[in-house]
């Protein structure tokens, strides 16, 4: 187990390094970024100050070193729009995004797994078709459109849910649902196929031979085994969910990183945008690492590989 962790950590470090290089190159894609890092209408002296601070007059490899050093210090520059430290702005917004992501993940898993179980266990065709249609809709409708429609229905027409802001659970329901619907389709599909496969296993036959009620056979014996691939998918989906959260946060003015990204992009607040992307990416690599390790811990058979 320990060797497995160390190996994954080393690989993780390499991946983080590559991520930093990619982002670095992306920001230099249009040439000299100094004009993006400075206020419009800045004087030559001000531009020079910035050049020095970020080593922009140095050759490219050196620039990268400065970039890394600054990033490690947490210095992503000033928010051009707000004047404060970009990193501070970013840190402030993290809890809100985490809250949204967790809620959406829970909803998507709950809906997804239930859908999969229903599709397997139910005898009636209409239930299977309903599950299928629900998944298809979730995959096809852009999540921000779901959000807008939801607002139209629940806020404007019915007036039972608020349209923006964060605070009580009412504020969380629509954004979390709009974000989570898309992902529930994947969980439904995996639960469905995993359950079908599991239900063919001998231990399910024995569970029935033991005279256990059918709901227990499916709900306990089958489900726990079927969950392993679901969790794998859930782990892989986190990256996508973070991206998908951006338009959702925007529609609901949810004060998280996605909304910050949107407003900063609109204001051409380059430093903040760069900072957000970098922080999130590094975080993603670490998260993947954690999921791998967790997965090895959960499935006792993997550990001994």
């Amino acid at each position: 187990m320990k060797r497995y962790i160390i190996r994954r950590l080393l690989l993780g470090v390499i991946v983080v390094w590559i991520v930093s290089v990619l982002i670095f190159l992306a920001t230099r894609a249009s040439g000299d970024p100094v004009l993006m890092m400075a206020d419009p209408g800045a004087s030559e002296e001000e531009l020079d100050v910035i050049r020095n601070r970020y080593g922009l007059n140095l050759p490219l490899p050196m620039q990268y070193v400065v970039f890394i050093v600054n990033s490690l210090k947490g210095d992503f520059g000033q928010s051009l729009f707000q004047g404060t430290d970009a990193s501070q702005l970013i840190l402030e917004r993290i809890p809100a995004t985490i809250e949204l992501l967790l809620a959406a993940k829970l909803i998507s898993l709950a809906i997804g797994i239930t859908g999969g179980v229903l599709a397997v266990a139910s005898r009636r065709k209409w239930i299977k078709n309903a599950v299928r249609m629900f998944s298809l809709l979730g995959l096809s409708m852009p999540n921000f459109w779901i959000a807008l429609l939801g607002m139209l229905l629940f806020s404007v027409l019915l007036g039972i849910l608020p349209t923006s802001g964060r605070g009580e659970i009412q504020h969380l329901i629509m954004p979390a649902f709009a974000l989570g619907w898309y992902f529930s389709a994947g969980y439904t599909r995996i639960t469905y196929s995993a359950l079908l496969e599991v239900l063919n296993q001998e231990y399910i036959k024995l569970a029935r031979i033991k005279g256990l009620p059918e709901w227990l056979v499916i709900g306990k014996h089958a489900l726990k085994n079927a969950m392993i691939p679901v969790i794998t998918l859930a782990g892989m989906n986190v990256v996508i969910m973070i991206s998908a959260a951006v338009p959702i946060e925007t529609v609901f003015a949810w004060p998280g990183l996605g909304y910050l990204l949107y407003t900063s992009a609109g204001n051409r607040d380059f430093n903040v945008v760069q900072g957000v992307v970098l922080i999130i990416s590094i975080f993603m690599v670490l998260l993947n690492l954690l999921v791998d390790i967790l997965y090895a811990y959960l499935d006792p058979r993997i550990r001994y590989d």
Partner: protein
Amino acid sequence: MKMIVNMRRILQRYFRGIPKIPAAILVMLFWAAIFADFLAPHNPEVGDPRERLLPTVFETGGMLKYPLGTDTMGRDVLSRVIFGARVSLLVAFSAVFLSACIGTLVGICAGFFGGWIDQIVMRFTDAWLSIPTIMFATLLAVVLGPSVANIIIIMGLIYWTRYARVTRGEALSLKSREFVHLATIAGSTKLRIIRKHILPNVMNSVITLASLQIGVVIVVEASLTFLGVGVPPPKPAWGLMLSEGRAGLFTGQWWLIVFPGLAIALLVMSFNLLGDWLRRRLDPHQQSLL
């Protein structure tokens, strides 16, 4: 006469079991995209400000002239939706094509040549996959400036990794098959082997993946455009219609959001269903994804 019968038979064989409604919807949308200039009743980019925010023809105040209503600048919603099909389809297909090319190339090289090239490419792909797509696209859009060409390039750059993963796996397993060995012994250059043996066999998976990706790319493009970092105004993109129509929600102009979004949903749904059918045709053992 015989030729017509033959053609008919070929068509029937190739399109056996195709889900009809999605196919019809796609044909309609493709038609709209290609012949927009003739189908759309009005100019999608310039409107009459005197006739702004008119509701659909079914409501009071609506006119037959603007069946689906008008937006804040007096532009006809129906025309914009029709032209929007062109934008969405153009961007989506170009982006998918680009990412498939890059990804397949990288993947085949990694799988075929193996060794340290493979390791490097794998780490690279892992890294790329860790970067959240929309956020990265936003960054690139801020750096490069929004335009249709840029959004295609950006999305092409983001999605190549999926193709690389898949083709790498296939190339790896194909590499050790007999016909490759035979070709090597017979003196084919590596390039030739790749072109004649590996590539055709990988195509099935690539097409399968591409069919899965189209829906995703359309939605992501719409999202990016909605956020302002995709297709720039005044082009009639569905994402733009949604972002511009947002304000109308609170003042009851529901048609500004419902129709563009519906168009996206129908397009993506049809692609998803057809993609599913295509996958099952290409590989009967694969389970339906829906």
